C-alpha cells in the first residue's frame, strides 16, 4: 500500500512493472480472506492453521454446519425477505416516481425533499423507535417486520424519477391518445423502457438486504424470521466455541449465493452498482 501515489514516469499509456506488481499484490491481499476461508472450509480441522499441499479435501465442515443450525430455514427466510422487499420497493417506487416525473401539483418540491430525507437518515439509525412501532403492530419476529421500514426506498424513487423524466413524453401522449389511462401508460410505456434501471436497482437491493444485519438482529428473536446473517452470528457466537473449520464453512455458505452470482455475472454487477451510484 506504499504505492498509493502513481509513480513519476513519463509514459502516459502503459502501466509500469511497478504498477503491475503493486496492483497484483493489492489484489492478492484483497482476496486473501476469501481464499483462506475456502481453504479452511474444505479441509479437515487440523489443517485450518497448517498449510500442506497434500491436505485432504472434505465437505464434512459444511455437513456439520448444516446439521448444527437450521440453515435451511435461514436460507428460506432470507430468500423470502429479499423478494418481499424488492417486490414492494419496485411497485411503490414506480408509482411514486411516475407522480414526481410526470405530474405537477402543489407542494411537489417539498414532498420530494421529504422523500430524499431517507437518503441521509437511513432506517438503520432509527432502530429504537422502529422497534417500538413493530412491537405495537405485533410484527416483531416476522419477515414483514424486518422488511417494512425498507419498502419505501427514497433511493429507488430518485433513480426511477430520473429515468422516467428522460423518457420522451411524446410516447406518453401517444399511449393516451390510444385511450390508455395513467396506470396503463406507466405499465406499457415507462416500465419497459426503464428495464435496465430496474435490473440495476434489483441487484443492489438484493445484495444489500441479503447482507443486512443490524435491524434484522434487533427485530427477530427466533428462527421463525431470522435471516442468514443473524443466523450465522448466533451460530458462530454461541454454538461453536472455536471450531473454525465449521464456522468458515457456515460463513461461505451464507455468502455463497451472492458470491456465485457475482462471479457469474460480474459485468452486470459492476454496471448495476455504477448505474445505481451515479445520479
Amino acid at each position: 500500500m506504499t504505492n498509493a501515489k502513481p509513480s513519476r514516469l513519463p509514459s502516459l499509456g502503459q502501466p509500469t512493472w511497478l504498477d503491475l506488481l503493486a496492483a497484483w499484490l493489492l489484489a492478492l491481499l484483497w482476496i486473501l480472506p476469501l481464499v483462506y476461508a475456502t481453504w479452511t472450509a474444505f479441509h479437515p480441522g487440523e489443517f485450518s492453521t497448517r498449510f500442506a499441499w497434500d491436505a485432504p479435501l472434505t465437505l464434512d465442515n459444511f455437513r456439520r454446519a448444516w446439521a448444527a443450525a437450521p440453515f435451511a430455514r435461514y436460507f428460506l427466510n432470507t430468500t423470502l425477505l429479499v423478494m418481499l422487499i424488492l417486490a414492494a420497493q419496485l411497485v411503490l417506487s414506480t408509482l411514486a416516481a411516475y407522480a414526481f416525473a410526470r405530474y405537477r401539483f402543489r407542494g411537489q418540491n417539498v414532498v420530494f425533499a421529504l422523500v430524499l430525507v431517507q437518503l441521509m437518515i437511513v432506517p438503520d439509525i432509527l432502530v429504537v423507535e422502529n422497534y417500538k412501532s413493530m412491537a405495537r403492530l405485533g410484527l416483531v419476529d416476522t419477515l414483514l417486520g424486518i422488511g417494512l421500514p425498507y419498502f419505501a426506498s427514497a433511493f429507488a424513487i430518485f433513480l426511477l424519477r430520473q429515468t422516467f423524466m428522460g423518457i420522451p413524453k411524446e410516447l406518453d401522449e401517444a399511449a393516451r391518445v390510444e385511450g390508455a389511462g395513467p396506470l396503463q401508460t406507466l405499465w406499457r410505456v415507462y416500465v419497459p423502457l426503464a428495464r435496465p434501471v430496474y435490473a440495476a436497482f434489483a441487484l443492489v437491493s438484493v445484495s444489500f438486504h441479503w447482507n443486512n444485519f443490524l435491524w434484522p438482529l434487533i427485530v427477530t428473536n427466533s428462527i421463525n424470521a431470522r435471516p442468514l446473517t443473524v443466523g450465522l452470528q448466533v451460530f458462530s457466537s454461541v454454538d461453536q466455541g472455536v471450531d473454525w473449520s465449521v464456522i468458515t464453512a457456515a460463513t461461505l455458505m451464507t455468502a455463497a449465493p451472492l458470491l456465485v452470482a457475482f462471479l457469474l455475472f460480474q459485468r452486470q454487477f459492476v454496471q448495476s452498482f455504477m448505474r445505481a451510484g451515479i445520479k
Partner: protein
Amino acid sequence: MDRPGTRAFSGMPAIHAWLLLLPALALLVAFTHYPAVQTLVDSFRATPRGGQPAAWVGLENYQVMVEDPVFWKAAVNNLWFAVVTIPCSIALALVMALWVNERIAGRAFLRMAYFTPTVLPMIAVANIWLFFYTPQYGLLEQLRGALGLPAQNWLGDPDTALGAVIAVTVWKESGFFMIFYLAALQTLNPSLREAASIEGASRWQFFRRVQWPLLMPTTLFVLVNAFINAFRMVDHLFVLTRGGPDNASTLLLYYLYEVGFSFWDTAYAAAITVVLVAVLAAIALFQFFVLDKRVHYQ
C-alpha cells in the same frame, strides 16, 4: 424549470399524483419521519418502566450523555474511525480505479479481486477476519511468529482494537468506491490523454492537472457516502470486538444498540439517536449547500 420532459400534461389531475404517491409516502412517514420526530420527543422523557407513562425530564438524558465517559469514548472512536477510513478507502479506490482503467495485465482478475469484498456480507467476512486476528493461531500471528516478532493480541489490546476494525472497513469499502471512479474515468475524453502526451506531461502531472480535477464530482459523491457509512457500519463490531476491550473500539451506532437493546434504556438511546441524526443531517446540509454548488462549476 420548464425543461422538456418535466412539464406536466394538461388534464392530469393532481389527485392522481397524490394517489400514486400515497403508499410510498405513508411508509416513509411511518418509518422515517415519524420515528425521527418521536425520537426527539422521547429523548426529553424518561424510559418508561412498569407500564407507567414516561415522565418528562427535560434535558436529563443529555445531561447523562455529557457525563457518560462511554458515550464520549464512542464519539471520539467514531471520529477516528471516520478520519482514517474515509481518506484511506477513497485513496485506495482511486488507485485501484486508475489501475484497472489501464490496459494492465490480468485486468479482469484485478477488478474482480478489488470488488469482491463489496458483495460479501460484512457479518460473514468479519468471521474470517476474526480468525486472521486470533492470538497464536491467527494468520497474522503466524506471520509475525515466522518473522520473529513478539506476539500481539490485535483485538484484545485497547491500542490496536480500533485499528483492526478500521482495516476491515477499508478492505470492505475500497472496491465499492473504486466502481464510481472507474465509471467516471471511462467517461473522460481519450483525447485529453493524447494532448497531455504531446505536451510531454508526466503521468503524475496528467493525473494531478487533468484526471483529479475532472474526478472531483465523483470524489465528493464518494466522500458523502463514505461519511454516512462511517456512522452506520457497525456489523463487524458484533463479531470482532463487541466494542471492547473496555470500549476501546465501540462506535456510536453500536453503543446506541447496546443502550437500547442490551440495557433497554430507550430514553437514553433516543438521545444518542438524536446525536447521530444531527451528524447525518449536518452532512446532508453540507452536501446540499456547499458541495453541490461547487461541483457544478467543475
